[in-house]
C-alpha cells in the first residue's frame, strides 16, 4: 500500500489550561483501516478523537486527515487558523458518533438523518429522504423512522446517530465510546452495525472498552495512557500478549 494514510498524527499535543492531556501522539490510520483506541479514562483517547475533527484545537504537532492539515492552513511558512466555514467543510467529511448519542430530540429519527445533508450539503429534500430511509433501513430501524429519540431505546438511538453520520457520506468515521452509555443487552446491536460498516471498507477510529469488538473487527489497536501511546499493534497480539507492563495491568482489569 503506497497510498497516503487517511489520518496522520505527528506529535499531537493538547493542553487544557496547565493540564497537558495529549503529550505527543504519533500514529497513522490507513485507508479502510479499523483502529481501536483503548486505555483508562483520562488517558486522552477521547480528546485525541475530538482533535481529529477539530472539536478541540491541536496545540502542538500536526494532524492530517486525507493529507489535509486539520484546523489550520500553512501559507508561506506560517500557520493560519481556519475560518469557521472552512473548518466546517473539513468536518462534514468526518462522521462522529458520541457516547451520549446527541440526537436532536425535537426531530424524528428520519429528520435527524436528513438534517445535515439538506442544510449542509444542499441536497434536495426528496433525495435526502430517500437516502435517509435507506440508511435507517441499513441500521435496522426501518420501522422507527417517525419516532422521536425519546421513544427509542439507547441502542436504537445510537444506531440512528450512526445513520445520521453516514448520511454525510464521510470518508472517516469516529466513534467516541459508542456503547458505554448503553444497557449491556443493547451493546450487541450497535456493535453489529459497526461490524457491518467495517466490512464495507470504511475507515474507522473507535474509542472503546469492548475488547471483543477490538479482537474481532479491528485491524489495529492502540493503547493510550497519560496522554501518550504506550503500545500498539495487531489487536489479537496486543490483547493476548501485551508487552508493556501498563498495558498488562489495564487489560487484566477489563478482560
Amino acid at each position, binding site marked *: 500500500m503506497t497510498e497516503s494514510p487517511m489520518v496522520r498524527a505527528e506529535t499531537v499535543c493538547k493542553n487544557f489550561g496547565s493540564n497537558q492531556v495529549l503529550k505527543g501522539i504519533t500514529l497513522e490510520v490507513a485507508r479502510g483501516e479499523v483502529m481501536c483506541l483503548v486505555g483508562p479514562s483520562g488517558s486522552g483517547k477521547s480528546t485525541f478523537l475530538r482533535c481529529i*475533527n477539530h*472539536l478541540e484545537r491541536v496545540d502542538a504537532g500536526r494532524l492530517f486527515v486525507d493529507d489535509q492539515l486539520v484546523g489550520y492552513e500553512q501559507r508561506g511558512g506560517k500557520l493560519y487558523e481556519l475560518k*469557521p*466555514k472552512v473548518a*466546517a*467543510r473539513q*468536518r*462534514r*467529511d*468526518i*462522521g*462522529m458518533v*458520541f457516547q*451520549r448519542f*446527541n*440526537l*436532536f*430530540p*425535537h426531530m*424524528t429519527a428520519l429528520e435527524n438523518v436528513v*438534517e*445535515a445533508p439538506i*442544510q*449542509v450539503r444542499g441536497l434536495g429534500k426528496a433525495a435526502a429522504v430517500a437516502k435517509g430511509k435507506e440508511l435507517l*433501513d*441499513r*441500521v*435496522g*430501524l*426501518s*420501522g*422507527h423512522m*417517525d*419516532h*422521536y*429519540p*425519546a*421513544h*427509542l*431505546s439507547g*441502542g*436504537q438511538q445510537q*444506531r440512528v*446517530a450512526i445513520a*445520521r*453520520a453516514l448520511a*454525510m457520506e464521510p470518508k472517516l468515521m469516529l466513534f467516541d465510546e459508542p456503547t458505554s452509555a448503553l*444497557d449491556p*443487552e*443493547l451493546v450487541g*446491536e*450497535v456493535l*453489529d*452495525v459497526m*461490524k*457491518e460498516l467495517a466490512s464495507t471498507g470504511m475507515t474507522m477510529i473507535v474509542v472503546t472498552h469492548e475488547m471483543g469488538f477490538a479482537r474481532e473487527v479491528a485491524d489495529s489497536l492502540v493503547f493510550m495512557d497519560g496522554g501518550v501511546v504506550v503500545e500498539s499493534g495487531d489487536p489479537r497480539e496486543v490483547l493476548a500478549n501485551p508487552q508493556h507492563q501498563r498495558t498488562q495491568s489495564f487489560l487484566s482489569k477489563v478482560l
Partner: protein
Amino acid sequence: MPADMQNPPAQRETAAPVGSAPIKAIKLRHPWRIVIAVILVAALALFVWDAANRPAYDWPEYAKYIFDRRIAAAAWVTIQLTVYSMIIAILLGLLLAVMRLSPNPVVKSVAWLYLWIFRGTPVYVQLVFWGLISVIYNTIDIGVPGLQPLASWETSELLNTFTLAVIGLALNEAAYMAEIVRAGILSVDKGQEEAATALGMSWPQTMRRIIVPQSMRIIIPPTGNEVISMLKTTSLVVAVPFSLDLYTRSRDISAVNFNVVAMLLVASSWYLLFTSILMVGQYFLEKRFSRGIGAMRLDKNAPIDESAGTGANTGAVTTTPQTSSDEGGRI
C-alpha cells in the same frame, strides 16, 4: 443454592391470602381542616356581603361605567401597548441574549451594560425619562457629527406619547427577556451544538435549526408570565405622560365624577379579565411545553406503533421474537 431459593416463595404463598385482602382501617380524622375551612369561608362571605352593601363601592356607578365607551377604548389601548411593547422586547431581548453569549468581550460588555442600566432602575423612572426626551434632545439628526445634518426632525413631532410609552416599556422589558432567552439557550445540552458542529453545520445553522427550537421549551412559559406582567405595567405610562390607557383613563373619569373607588373597580375588572385570559393561555402553553420534546410533537405525527415503542423503552428487545427481528441491526 437452588434449594435455598425455593423456600422463601413458599412462605410468601401461605401469607398471601392475608396480604392481598383489602385493608379496612378507620380513617384518620382531620378536625382542624374543617374548622379552618369554615372560618375562611365565613370571613370571605362576610366580606362579600359587606362589600355588596357598602355605599363607598357605589355599585350602580360601577355598572354604569364598566362598559363605558371611553373605558372600552382605553382597554383596547392597553392591549396595544402590551402587544407592541412585548414584540419589540422579545426581538431586542433575543439580540441582547445572543450578544451576551458572544465570544467578543466588547459585544458582551455592551449587552451587560444595557441590562445593568435597564434592570437596575425603576421602570417608572425610565418612563419619566422618555417623556423628557424631547427636552433633552430637541431634534433628531442624521449626518456626520460636526457637519450640517443631512436630515433633522423635531423630537416632539417625531415621537408622540404613545410611541414613547411603547419605547419605554419595551426597552425595560427587553432586559428581562434577554435573561429569559439566555437561560433558554444555555439550557440546551452542549452535546447538541457539538453534534451539529461535527456534522459540518455552521454556527447560525446550529442556532436556528438545533439550539433555538429546543430552547423554546424553556423560554415560552416565563415569556407568558412577562406578558401578564407587562399588561399591568402599562398602568405606569402616565409617567410619560400618556393618558389613554385603562388606568389613567379611569382616573381621569373619576376626577370628573368624583367616584374614585368605583372607577378603580372598573379598571381592576378589565385588568382581571385580560390577565385571566392570558393565564388560561399560559396554562395550555406550559402544559404543552413542559412535556418532553419527543412527546410534545407525538400527537402531530400520528402513526406510531405503540407496542414497538414501549417494547423499545423497556428494553424488552430480547424477550419478544417479534421485536427482536427488527432490533438485530440488519447486515
